[in-house]
C-alpha cells in the first residue's frame, strides 16, 4: 500500500538520522512529548529552531567575517545556538558549535572560521533532511505521525 510504503520510507529516513548521528536521543524525547493533542509538536519545534538558527547563523557569519570580531557576542550567540541545537537533538550541529567556540576561544580565528563553515553546512544538511521527513509525516497523517516517530522501532 502506498501509505504503508510511505510509512516505511519515513521510518527508514528517521533511522538514517540516527545512524548518521545527525540526530540523537534528545530527538526521541521530543517525539515522546508529542501526543494526540499535539500531533505536530516536533515539527513545530523544529520549525521554530530553524527560523532562529538561520538568522543566528547569518549574524555570526557576518560577524566573523569582519575584521573586528566581537568575540563575546559571537560566543554568546553560539552558546545559545548550542543550547537550542542540543535541545532538539541536533547532534552534529551541536558538536560543530562546540568546536567553533573552542577555536574562537583559543584565538584560532582561521580555524574557527573553517569550523563555522562546517557548522553551517551541517545545519543546512539537517534542514534539508528533515524537511522532506516532516512533509512525508504529514502525508501519512497524524495517526501515523503519532505512532511512527515514537521511536518504537528505532531506539
Amino acid at each position: 500500500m502506498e501509505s504503508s510504503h510511505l510509512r516505511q520510507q519515513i521510518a527508514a529516513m528517521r533511522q538514517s538520522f540516527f545512524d548518521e548521528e545527525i540526530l540523537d536521543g534528545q530527538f526521541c524525547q521530543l517525539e515522546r512529548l508529542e501526543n494526540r493533542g499535539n500531533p505536530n509538536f516536533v515539527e513545530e519545534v523544529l520549525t521554530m529552531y530553524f527560523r532562529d538558527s538561520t538568522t543566528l547563523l547569518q549574524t555570526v557569519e557576518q560577524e566573523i567575517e569582519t575584521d573586528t570580531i566581537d568575540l563575546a557576542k559571537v560566543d554568546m550567540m553560539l552558546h545559545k545556538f548550542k543550547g537550542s541545537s542540543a535541545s532538539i537533538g541536533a547532534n552534529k550541529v551541536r558538536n560543530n558549535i562546540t568546536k567553533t567556540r573552542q577555536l574562537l576561544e583559543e584565538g584560532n580565528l582561521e580555524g574557527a572560521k573553517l569550523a563555522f563553515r562546517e557548522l553551517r553546512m551541517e545545519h543546512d544538511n539537517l534542514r534539508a533532511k528533515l524537511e522532506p521527513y516532516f512533509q512525508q509525516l504529514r502525508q501519512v497523517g497524524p495517526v501515523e505521525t503519532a505512532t511512527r516517530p515514537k521511536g518504537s522501532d528505532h531506539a
Partner: protein
Amino acid sequence: MNSSSGKTYMSTSNSSAGWKAGDAAADQFPVGLRVLVVDDDPTCLMILEKMLRTCLYEVTKCNRAETALSMLRENKSGFDVVISDVHMPDMDGFKLLEHIGLEMDLPVIMMSADDGKHVVMKGVTHGACDYLIKPVRIEALKNIWQHVVRKRKNEWKDFEQSGSVEEGDRQLKQSEEADYSSSANEGNWKSSKRRKDDEDETDDRDDTSSLKKPRVVWSVELHQQFVAAVNQLGIDKAVPKKILELMNVPGLTRENVASHLQKYRLYLRRLSGVSQHPSNLNNSFMSPQEATFGPLSSLNGLDLQTLAATGQLPAQSLVTLQAAGLGRPTGKSGIPMPLVDQRNIFSFENPKLRFGDGQQHVNNNKQMNLLHGIPTTMEPKQLAGLHHGAQSMGNMNMQVASHGSQSSQNNPLLMQMAQPQVRGQMLNDTSLGHPPRLLSPMGQPILSNGIAANVSTRNGIQENIRAPSYNPVSQTSSMLNFPMNHAAELPGNSFPLGSTPGISSLTPKVAFQEDVNSDIKGSVGFLPSYDIFNDLNQHKPQNWELQNVGMTLDASQHSNSLQGNLNHAQSVLVQQGFPSGQVNGQNRSATVVSKAMFSSGDSTGHVNVQNGNQHLNSLLVDSTVRIKSETPTILYPDDFGQEDLMSALLKQQDAIAPAEHEFDFDGYSLDNIPV
C-alpha cells in the same frame, strides 16, 4: 487529566489548583506544581514548557528575566519553583537568581548548555537549588518538586524551631502533644505536620476530627479490663452490655465495647485458625514468637523505650508493654512472632508473599492461612507487610487504635508495632490484655525500622498513622493500619516516601523474622512500593492507601465474614493492600489510594469494628473502595489494576472527603499511581 501524557498521573479535581505546599491540592503533589520557566531561546522555551506540562505542572513561560522578575513580584506566592537559563540578554541568570532568592525565596533551578565546572559552581554559590545541563530531559524535570519540598522543609525548620529542635522532633512533638490532647489523634499528627507546613486545613481537619469523633482509646489497661471481663463471662457468653457492666469504665459506651469485642473475636478466631490451640493460644503463640523474634524483642524493648520516651506511647501502655514484654518471654519474643504470623497470614494468599518465606521462620505459618484466599495482586511482599500490619493490627487495632489515636506519631508507630506483633501473639493469649506485647512485636520492628526513623519525617505517614486507629475491620484493618501506622507514625517518611527504599527492600524479604525489622519496614513500606511517599509532606501515605485499597479489594472476595473473620479481613486487606502496593510505581498516587483506604479504616478504628465489618461485607460485595468510616476496609476488587484502584480510591476519597476528619486522611489523590 492525565490523558495526554503517557504518564499515569492521576489528577483529581484539584490537580489543577495551584499547588501549595501543604495544600489540599498537594494531595496530588507534585501535580499542579507552579513553575515559572525563563529562557530567551524560544525553541528551548517551547520544549521546556511542553515537558513541564507533560509532568502535569502548571507552567508559565517567560523569555526575559525582567518580565519574570516582575511577574514574581506581582504574585509572590504564585509560583513554586523557577527554572531559568543562565545566559540571557537582558539580565544575567545569576543575577535573577539572586533577586529571586532575596525577594521571594523560591527555589531556583539554573539551566544552561554550558556544563563547565565554573559555571555550575557559580550556580551553587549563588544559591541555585539545582543546575540542569541542556539538553534538558523530561526525567530531570520530573523531580524538580523535590527542591520545593526541601526548601519548604527547611523553612519550616527555621520558623518553628528555635534552632536546636530537629524538624522531625518538632513534628513528633507536635504530634505528641496533639495526640495526647485528643483521643482522635489521627488528625493530630497530621495537623502538627500541617501546621508546620502552614496549612490550615489540617488544623481544621484536626479539630473537626477530634470534635466529631471522640474515639475510645483502647489502652493497654482498658483492654486488659476488657479481656478480664470477657474471660469472666466466657467468650461465648460475653456480650457487650455485660462486658461494659463488668468493666465499669465511665464514658465507655456499649458500642465501643461491641466493636472492640468484635475485633477481639476476630483476633481469637484468627489465632485459633492458626492451628494453635485455642486454649493455648497464648502459650503456643508465644513460644513460636519467641523463637522467631529474637531480634524483635530487642526491638520491642527499644521501641518501647523510645516510644515511652517520646511520650508517644501512653505511659501506661508503655509500662504494660514492657511488662508484658519483659514479663512474658514470649511476649517479647512473641512479638517477632506476631510479625511472622502476620506475615504468614499475608502470605497465605500469595505464595509469593514474602512473608511466607519469612513465616517459615516463625511458626506462624498457620497464620498464613488466614490470609488465604486473598488473591492479592500486590506483591507478596507488600501483602506480607500489609498482612503483618493487618493481622497484628487487627488485634492490635484494638490496642493500637487506642494508642494510635493517642500518639499521633510515635504512638502509632509503637502501636503499630505492638499491634501487629502483638496480635499474633496476643491472640494466642487469651488474655489479650497484653497489649504491650502486641505492640512490641510488630511495632518494634516496624518502628525501629522505618518508623523510628521516619517518625519525624513527615508527611505521608501521618496519614497512615491514622490507620492504626483504624483497626476496625478485623484484620484487614490491622493490616492496613499496620502499614499505615508505620507510615503514619513514621512521620511520614518511612512510609511512603522515604522509606521506599527500605520498604521495598523489605517486601522482598520473606523471612520475616530475620528481617523483621526490615520487614516491618517493608510492611510499612508497602506503601512505599507505591513510591508514594515520594511526596513528602504533602503526600500523605497515598501509597499506603493504595495498599489499603488493595486490601479491601480482596475483601470482596471474602466478603461477608469480615466482621466475624478477621482472617478474611486480613486477607482481604492484605490482598487489597497489595494491589495498591503494586501501584508503587509512584508513591504519590499510591498514597492517595491507600489513604483513602486507610482513612476509612482508620476512622472507624476499633470502635467501629462491628460496623466496619458489616460494611466490609457490603464493601466486599460492592468491591468498591469505601473509605467511609464505617468500613474500615476498603474493598476493592481483586483485579483492581492500580489505575483502577487509584480511581476507586479517588472516588472513595471523594466520598470520604467528608469523613476526612475521621480518618485523618488527606485524601491524597492518587496521583502517580504507577501504572
